[in-house]
């Protein structure tokens, strides 16, 4: 909702005239509500920037947050909410940063002229601040969402390490939900590591996967087939009793893929295949 030109100019006048008092009081209110989690200097800088942007916006095209002339004001509001979201403030605390201006203006208007226009001005101004508050809110939510998306992506990276556990043996400990996106990452990592370390064996450990349904099984099977095409043998380990019974009931067939109860069993199996165990034990018997 836009303010009329007359209201606009009166409010700009007020904002400009009482600049010092408004920013001081605004900082004071914010400092109280945020309880010292932001420094006074930081708050003052933000408030002055916002105050300045409002006056600029009003001078160049009236108080309308949607208009082109309010671009700077929108940018300042967006910057403010981004900062608050990243510093871990709540949405309410962020929006209050803007809404506090209402209280400030009410105080200014009370001591200023007290004619019939004052109330109308205040109501009009109020709706503008509401608009600014909502805009802040939206920016806040957007920032939070992008933070969550970033974290989800980081989690994707974090939770799929491919580790070399023996000469020629790599292991992928899978943890959590194996959806299509993660399965893709796992497969790419595994295949790349197989090439990089020229390992003929890969162990896929599913101890950390809470439920193995047909989708998870299909992802694992595809990974195993892809690894085979590259000449590597896969062993699936970490199949707990309840998972084993569920897989049987579901009717999933792992075919000729070796499966073991634990990662240790899988490693032992691979070492036996490569003859490492025999070579290691012999000297001990002699001594």
């Amino acid at each position, binding site marked *: 909702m836009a303010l009329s030109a007359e209201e606009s100019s009166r409010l700009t006048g007020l904002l400009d005239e009482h600049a010092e008092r408004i920013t001081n009081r605004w900082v004071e209110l914010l400092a109280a509500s945020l309880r010292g989690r932001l420094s006074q200097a930081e708050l003052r800088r933000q408030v002055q920037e916002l105050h300045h942007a409002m006056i600029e916006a009003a001078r160049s095209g009236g108080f309308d947050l949607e208009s082109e002339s309010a671009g700077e004001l929108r940018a300042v509001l967006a910057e403010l909410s981004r900062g608050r979201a990243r510093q871990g403030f709540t949405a309410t605390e962020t929006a209050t940063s803007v809404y506090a201006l209402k209280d400030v203006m009410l105080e200014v208007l009370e001591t200023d002229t007290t004619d019939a226009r004052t109330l109308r001005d205040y109501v009009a101004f109020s709706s503008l601040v509401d608009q600014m508050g909502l805009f802040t809110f939206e920016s806040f939510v957007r920032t939070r969402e992008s933070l969550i998306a970033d974290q989800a992506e980081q989690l994707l990276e974090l939770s799929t390490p491919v580790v070399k556990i023996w000469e020629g043996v790599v292991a992928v400990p899978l943890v959590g*939900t194996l*959806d*299509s996106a993660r399965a893709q990452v796992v497969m790419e990592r595994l295949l790349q590591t197989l090439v990089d370390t020229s390992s003929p064996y890969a162990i896929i450990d599913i101890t950390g996967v*809470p*439920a*193995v*349904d*047909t*989708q998870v*099984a*299909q992802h694992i099977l595809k990974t195993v087939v892809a690894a085979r095409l590259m000449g590597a043998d896969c062993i699936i380990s970490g199949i707990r*009793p*309840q*998972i084993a*019974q*569920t897989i049987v*009931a*579901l*009717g*999933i067939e792992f075919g000729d893929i070796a499966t073991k109860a634990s990662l240790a069993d899988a490693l032992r199996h691979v070492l036996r295949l490569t003859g490492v165990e025999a070579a290691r034990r012999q000297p001990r018997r002699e001594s």
Partner: protein
Amino acid sequence: MTAGVDRGHPQAQAIRSDEDVVRVRQLVRTVAVAVRLSLVDQTKLVTAASELARNTLVYGGGGTAEVSTVDNGLRRGVRIVFADDGPGIADLDLALTDGYTTGGGLGLGLSGARRLVDEFDIDTGPERGTRITVTKWSR
């Protein structure tokens, strides 16, 4: 279809995305733990719920899952109702055949889920959506 008195309010979860399938799984696990299903039965039920929720999403175009606890006087159990307004299943016998799939999966979801639960009821038909009710009783 079965004797069972509903206890407590059913908890509903909308199924609109892959994340919702995970949420259904977590909700089912929480309820299954609360009625003291054994670890094997919990895992079976959660896996069945995972299959059916994904079917609801992929083939039904999204829907809801309603999880409630039931009591037949002797045993307690968990009942889940999956409902969607999708195209429905034209040939139910074929859909329940192991290895039959129209979506590129393993073709074991629906038939496998039926084997994982104690009671399995399906109400579907062309152009009238699908409603699947499954129950798992504690032993």
